[in-house]
């Protein structure tokens, strides 16, 4: 399977990448690790006419201690997240979730920014960044702006990024309290049929859901129930409220709703919330 023909441009810096995006508009796509985009191009589900390769923009691969938060460059690979001592100590849910993406070969190439910008509702990393209440930094022709993770995923494979913006950094709060990620699938390396992330952060408990709608979601009803004093088991009963889970080969919407409730209870209990 060969992608449709495209022109190849290599950007040496984020400024250069944004200038190229400005020049080619919505015909262009950014290429980072390529592990979300290239499979779609091979299937001709994505047919960009220009690829802007940002894989060599070296100053966007880092994991830095920002005091109360951790700043991560958008081109940081999953493998680097998985093996980061800083994340292991101060934000273990993110390194754990990174270790659940695909397989080792995929994690050697895939990038955090690429995974988030791809906005696949079944991906793992958006769950962690959403549950953590992270902030995404987008650079455009007029400078940078911050986007809350909860505002970033706007639709099925759609994000709040405009055609001439590029994701440059992801900031997550330190969260060394209880956490858990439940990824339910039938085979190794598959996407989650349903995934649930739970993490204690800033004095509360946040819960996010994967593959329960057209975007990754925060489980607002569960969070509200917990904040109101409900037990984990009672709060988990609300996990499917307000969701519109998809149907596919693996699961019906009803089965996904059931999974969301069960996995949410397991995630909360494993995170030490009772």
């Amino acid at each position, binding site marked *: 399977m*060969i992608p449709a*023909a495209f022109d190849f441009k*290599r950007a040496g810096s984020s400024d250069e990448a944004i200038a190229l995006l400005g020049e080619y508009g919505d015909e262009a796509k950014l290429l980072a690790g390529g592990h979300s985009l290239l499979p779609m191009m*091979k299937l001709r589900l994505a047919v960009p006419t220009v690829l802007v390769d940002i894989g060599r923009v070296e100053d966007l691969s880092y994991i830095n201690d920002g005091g109360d938060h951790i700043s991560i460059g958008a081109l940081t690979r999953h493998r680097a997240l998985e093996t980061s001592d800083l994340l292991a100590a101060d934000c273990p849910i993110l390194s754990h979730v990174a270790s659940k993406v*695909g397989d080792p*070969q*995929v994690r050697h*190439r895939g990038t955090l920014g690429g995974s988030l910008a791809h906005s696949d509702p079944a991906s793992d990393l958006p769950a962690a960044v959403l549950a953590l209440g992270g902030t995404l930094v987008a650079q455009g022709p007029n400078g940078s702006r911050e986007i809350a993770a909860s505002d970033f995923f706007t639709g099925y494979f759609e994000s709040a990024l405009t055609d001439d913006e590029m994701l440059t950094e992801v900031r997550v709060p330190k969260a060394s309290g209880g956490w858990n990620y439940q990824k339910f699938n039938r085979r190794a390396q598959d996407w989650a049929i349903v995934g649930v992330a739970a993490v204690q952060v800033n004095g509360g408990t946040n819960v996010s859901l994967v593959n329960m709608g057209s975007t990754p979601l925060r489980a607002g009803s569960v969070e509200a129930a917990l904040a109101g004093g409900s037990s984990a088991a009672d709060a988990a009963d609300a996990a499917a409220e307000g969701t519109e889970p998809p149907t596919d080969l693996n699961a019906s919407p009803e089965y996904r709703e059931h999974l969301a409730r069960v996995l949410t209870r397991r995630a909360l209990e494993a995170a030490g919330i009772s």
Partner: protein
Amino acid sequence: MRPTMRGDTVEISVTVNGTAESNDVEPRTLLVYYLRDQLGLTGTNVGCDTSSCGACTIHVNGESVKSCTMLAVQADGEDITTIEGLAPSDDELHPMQDSFREHHGLQCGYCTPGMVMAAVSLLEENASPTEAEVREGLEGNLCRCTGYHNIVKAVLAASGQSVD
């Protein structure tokens, strides 16, 4: 001068199995086809062509990568190793290849180049893995003969651990 057409070729320079190579490639050329068709290195197999099976696993700067999911242009300037470049000489196998032979870690052999490359990368990152870590570490490689048991044995033995 002809008009510029979409997908004009790009020159890349890569080191493949220690040899410097320089070629013009179409931007949409996948790395695995560059290796197989342009360089004639057909030891790397194409299996599923959807980044699931791992038959096309090679090393990019020492790390396992599925070469069906990388463009040749992305390999520009990088150091590539394929199964052909693993053995130290024509007369000697790499210890992982030797271990696969010793423990009968292959049946039909189609997945073997990718399995061996993935296994070498796994031991680079974890020199003495448990059996469970080997099984998880090879999750990106499928063997449709389902000969996993001896593959896992071969990898454990190659790491210097005793196996039954």
